């Protein structure tokens, strides 16, 4: 910052570089932007299963495109997947693999396993060499127990007891790292996930609106859509948004235009028709 060294307590902002930045902007340098994937998705394993959580804001650059979208996707009756990244990519890839899992279930007559969904997803993403921009948190409970995985756009995966992804992942991970412990009960788990997502909603610009939760246990699942809505619409003006139709007249001044001139034909031929 300041090149003068330590002289007295530093109070307030240092605007030393203001004139330099101003000059650069005038010369055409674009300041760095905020374009991020804009999501907070989390998952954690509790005593009896898996809890997944997500915010509900979809962004198109700096604009909020959807204030209440669904980021927790169905994969199988016992497996759900949160998606961060390009919304179309996460939708398409989870739909596709969900379809493949269904056919597999008919063929084998058995419940799908989380590792099957994991392998299908990671193979798909690897095949597309990262161009399918989908970062996923996959969780579910099958015959071998509860599982939680993260999948990165290039196809690498991690198996974790708690996980966060998206632009709000740091905010959410801060909550998890300080408060997660093994053997949480269902309510403790839901509260922790809600806290982590709220941390993302309020501290990350790319995440916002409401909290979606999905609790998966052995033999049952609960999809809590809009479990928490900490951002209700409160700005509706009581007067409404109707404006008076007339424009207020402040001053009337009439300026005559130049006189109209009548052209009189003096002689000569009329124009040929």
């Amino acid at each position: 910052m300041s090149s003068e060294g330590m002289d007295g307590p530093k109070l307030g902002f240092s605007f030393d570089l203001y004139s330099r930045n101003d000059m650069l902007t005038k010369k055409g340098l674009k300041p760095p932007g905020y374009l991020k994937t804009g999501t907070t998705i989390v998952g954690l394993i509790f005593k009896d299963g898996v809890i997944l959580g997500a915010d509900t804001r979809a962004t198109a650059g700096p604009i909020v495109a959807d204030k209440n979208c669904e980021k927790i996707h169905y994969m199988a009756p016992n497996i759900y997947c949160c998606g961060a990244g390009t919304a179309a990519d996460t939708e398409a890839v989870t739909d596709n693999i969900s379809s493949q899992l269904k056919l597999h279930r008919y063929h084998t007559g058995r419940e799908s396993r989380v590792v099957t969904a994991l392998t299908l997803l990671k193979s798909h993403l690897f095949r597309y060499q990262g161009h399918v921009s989908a970062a996923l948190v996959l969780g579910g409970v099958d015959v071998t127990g509860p599982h939680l995985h993260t999948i990165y756009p290039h196809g690498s995966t991690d198996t974790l007891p708690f996980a966060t992804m998206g632009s709000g992942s740091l905010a959410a991970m801060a909550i998890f790292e300080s408060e997660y412990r093994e053997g949480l009960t269902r309510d403790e788990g839901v509260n922790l996930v809600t806290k982590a997502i709220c941390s993302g909603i309020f501290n990350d610009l790319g995440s916002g609106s409401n909290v979606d939760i999905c609790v998966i246990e052995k033999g049952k699942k609960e999809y809590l859509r809009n479990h928490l809505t900490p951002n209700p619409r409160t700005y509706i003006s009581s007067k409404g948004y109707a404006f008076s139709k007339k424009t207020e007249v402040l001053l009337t001044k009439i300026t005559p235009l130049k006189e109209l001139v009548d052209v009189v034909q003096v002689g000569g031929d009329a124009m040929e028709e």
Partner: protein
Amino acid sequence: MGDSQYSFSLTTFSPSGKLVQIEHALTAVGSGQTSLGIKASNGVVIATEKKLPSILVDETSVQKIQILTPNIGVVYSGMGPDSRVLVRKSRKQAEQYNLLYKEPIPVTQLVRETAAVMQEFTQSGGVRPFGVSLLVAGYDDKGPQLYQVDPSGSYFSWKASAMGKNVSNAKTFLEKRYTDDMELEDAIHTAILTLKEGFEGQISGKNIEIGVIEADRTFRRSPDCSSNRRLSSRGRVAVSFSFRRCFKYPE
């Protein structure tokens, strides 16, 4: 047979206008185990006899009635391996339809696509027709439906139908017993009685299979029922299905 010169090649018509290979395929179906289906006012039932080649065969491993989608099931008469190929293809087509239109495939659409596959194999080189006829039972927005698909690729909608060995007797029996306003419980009862007509030996829960679909649009199959059918020794059938507890395919 005067057509014998034309009977080896599938893709050649005989002078009488038939494709003899398809006729032979229908004969293969006709010598298969009896299966039948009945459409009731509030559901459809399909049933088949499950005669195993020996008592040493583990009957729980044999599943003749299969599910195609959560609301459509199928049974066959004829060559088992051929039916497996068709079931696999149909499941995939149904799933592709679902992916594309985000709605469960209507029964008629699935039947049409399966029939199209069977027809392909009657007009290609180096292949033979499928040696199965399928009875497709489903429940969709148009209500309960029952279709039969033949090796030629033609399909028909039936109120009640039978295929396989005992087809003529079974059909006569069904014609007598069928009523338009039949309920599903009656239909199941009639189905078992019809099977019993042509059954060689003692009918029991272990050597028939029943598939049912009702207004809840979930296909259920019998052999995995916890409470089995009780078929009394005097030949009267006591139907004690509890289909709600029955095996449901994983969704």
